[in-house]
């Protein structure tokens, strides 16, 4: 369709909806944080209400147009990219927050409300919205629900799913569903709300949500520990979970530490060198908490699992310690890393890492592997750096082969090929390593039921049949 035709069509059928066909807007709105696909969208639409979203979906059905539901476009799986002349349905103008009910502790939000905006809102009520990660300033509640986003406090507070008390959704046929309505208990059959959570825009467009807010956490501190071995990591985790009230337990290797120190010009946290480091955030409000923390540390020190440790004395120092973990991704970006976000059961983490390291050493001796992750959730970020003398195309070709090893190993350990970034276009070819053929077939039937004409995010998540 020529831009003029598109404009006429939109102006005629959805006259209230703001849109653009300007080339720079199209490129901007056709991309998320992945950079593997050539952006190609036909229009960007900015509805302001559920009703307008419904009009758009009905029009798409009538003319056979594909839609890409679009949030903050911070996704890492190409779920929100447009590559085939789709219309991008952006939630950027659906940013209303409120009303808030203090008895229910529920706040109604439109899907375009940014994660950070909800956190701020909760704070202003003296409450807390615990889902948090580095992209919280731009990612949206709609996108978070569509990916069931996790982040740095999953260990303690769970994922986005745990905070969704109600949803308003426009299905692929343009029906409006109001799901669960903020109820705490609701034993009335299949909970379609939970089907929508993590559905990556293939079943419906989320337009509004009722989000649960909770009590703010107690004062906390951060500990950075130097550990003697990978097995020590698991033992220290078990100890920490028993003795402390943990909200984060993050792992990174010495190599990762070196990259961050170089990149951010940070001083070495310890005088010695240890193979692994863990960062713990835990409740630290009373003398009892302090005693527990010290007892935990002393036990580890005596057993030899812990080699050294630092405790934050203020929130500023806590922030400084987090830098050693949060700066990793950025610090290796210039090495065009192969990235993978995977999960196994917590107890299987060392097995997975050892077996994969062995394979990589044997077949790809020139590769440098940087490990880090939300280890308390069994969630690992595997990063392989491109050797400097290898060109990008050759590196990508070899990484395709690495995938076979990674996913084979995940399958044998019954893990997940995508821990928290979703499937989108990126993980679609590998979904079968984590989900059985029967499951995938059922998913297709569910898709068929919600979106029989396939107008919502076609080509995403479900493998091509």
């Amino acid at each position, binding site marked *: 369709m020529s831009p003029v035709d598109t404009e006429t069509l939109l102006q005629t059928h959805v006259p209230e909806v703001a849109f653009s066909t300007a080339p720079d807007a199209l490129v901007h709105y056709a991309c998320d944080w992945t950079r593997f696909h050539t952006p190609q969208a036909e229009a960007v639409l900015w509805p302001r209400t559920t009703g307008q979203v419904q009009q758009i979906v009905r029009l798409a059905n009538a003319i056979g147009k594909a839609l890409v539901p679009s949030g903050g476009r911070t996704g890492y799986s190409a779920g929100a990219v447009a590559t085939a002349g789709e219309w991008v349905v952006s939630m950027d103008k659906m940013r209303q927050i409120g009303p808030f009910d203090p008895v229910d502790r529920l706040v109604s939000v439109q899907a375009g409300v940014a994660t950070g905006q909800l956190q701020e809102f909760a704070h202003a009520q003296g409450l807390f919205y615990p889902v948090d990660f580095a992209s919280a300033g731009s990612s949206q509640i709609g996108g978070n629900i569509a990916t069931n986003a996790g982040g740095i406090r999953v260990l303690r507070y769970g994922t986005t799913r745990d905070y969704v008390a109600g949803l308003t959704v426009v299905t692929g046929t343009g029906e409006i569903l109001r799901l669960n309505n903020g109820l705490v208990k609701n034993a009335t059959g299949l909970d379609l709300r939970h089907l929508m959570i993590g559905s990556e825009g293939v079943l419906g467009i989320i337009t509004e949500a009722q989000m649960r807010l909770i009590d703010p956490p107690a004062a906390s501190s951060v500990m950075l520990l130097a550990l003697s071995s990978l097995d020590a990591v698991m033992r220290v985790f078990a100890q920490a979970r028993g003795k402390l009230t943990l909200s984060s337990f993050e792992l990174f290797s010495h190599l990762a530490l070196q990259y961050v120190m170089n990149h951010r010009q940070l001083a070495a946290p310890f005088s010695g060198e240890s193979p692994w480091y863990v960062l713990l955030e835990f409740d630290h409000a009373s003398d009892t908490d302090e005693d527990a923390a010290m007892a935990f540390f002393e036990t580890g*020190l005596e057993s030899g699992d812990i080699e050294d440790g630092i405790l934050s004395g*203020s929130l500023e120092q806590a922030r400084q310690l987090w830098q050693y973990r949060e700066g990793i991704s950025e610090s290796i970006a210039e090495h065009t890393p192969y990235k993978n976000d995977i999960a196994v059961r917590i107890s299987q983490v060392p097995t997975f890492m050892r077996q994969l390291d062995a394979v990589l050493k044997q077949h790809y001796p020139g590769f440098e592997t940087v490990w880090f992750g939300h280890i308390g959730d069994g969630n690992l970020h595997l990063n392989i750096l491109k050797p400097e003398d290898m060109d990008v195309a050759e590196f990508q070709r070899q990484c395709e082969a690495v995938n076979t090893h990674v996913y084979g190993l995940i399958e044998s350990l019954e893990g997940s090929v995508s821990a928290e970034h979703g499937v989108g276009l990126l993980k679609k070819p590998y979904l079968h390593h984590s989900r059985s053929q029967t499951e995938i077939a059922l998913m297709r039937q569910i898709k068929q039921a919600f979106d029989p004409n396939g107008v919502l995010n076609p080509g995403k998540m479900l493998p091509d049949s």
Partner: protein
Amino acid sequence: MKILVPIKRVVDYNVRVQVKPDGSGVATDGVKMSINPFDEIAIEEALRLKEQGKADEVVVVSIGPDEAQQQLRTALAMGADRAILLQSGEAVQPLQAANALLKIVQEEQPELVIMGKQAIDDDNNQTPQMLATLWDRPQATFVSKLSLENNKATATREVDAGLETIEVELPAVISTDLRLNEPRFVKLPDIMKAKRKPLETRPLSDVTGDFSEQELTITQYEAPQPRQKGVMVESVDELITLLKEKGLVA
């Protein structure tokens, strides 16, 4: 040479404080408490002087509730040698604090008192100056660089017009500014060792007697007015019309 470092337990700098509904103060329940950041810098400076061999003992003192022992323990773990807590359940005004510190100064006879230029809870910026006056010794305030030589301290001060370097005769009072240094992290093994370092506690009234100059009481706390939400205008004309409506331009 002995250095005395007074420190205060305050609501952590990064906590967004909330005024209690009845306006009697700010909420501190479950709120992160830390060493006043300027005082942390003072401890760090004292420790660096000790590590350079310029001082041989660092004593930290705090006026505050029993819980302030936590902050004193942190100072000990950072490397201070001894700690004193003057227990007081009530908020203390600068003059009372300066008088109490004067008593400790007279007992301890330090050559140098290094302290934060102000506490971030009440932002008074008075205690160091008052202490120097009561003690009748020189002071160098808002210091961003410090060196000791021949019984003199050379201090670079941050003043409105720029930087000023002055020399003061010891003993003296130094108050620290933000750029003086970056405080170290506390090592967990040092926290363990710090448990064995002496921490003396005594009631504030022991040193101040029946000090009755508590003349200032704060009657009401209020949160600042929230900022008015901005409005987006579509055109310059609309902007001018709005400004005229509000009587901001003629």
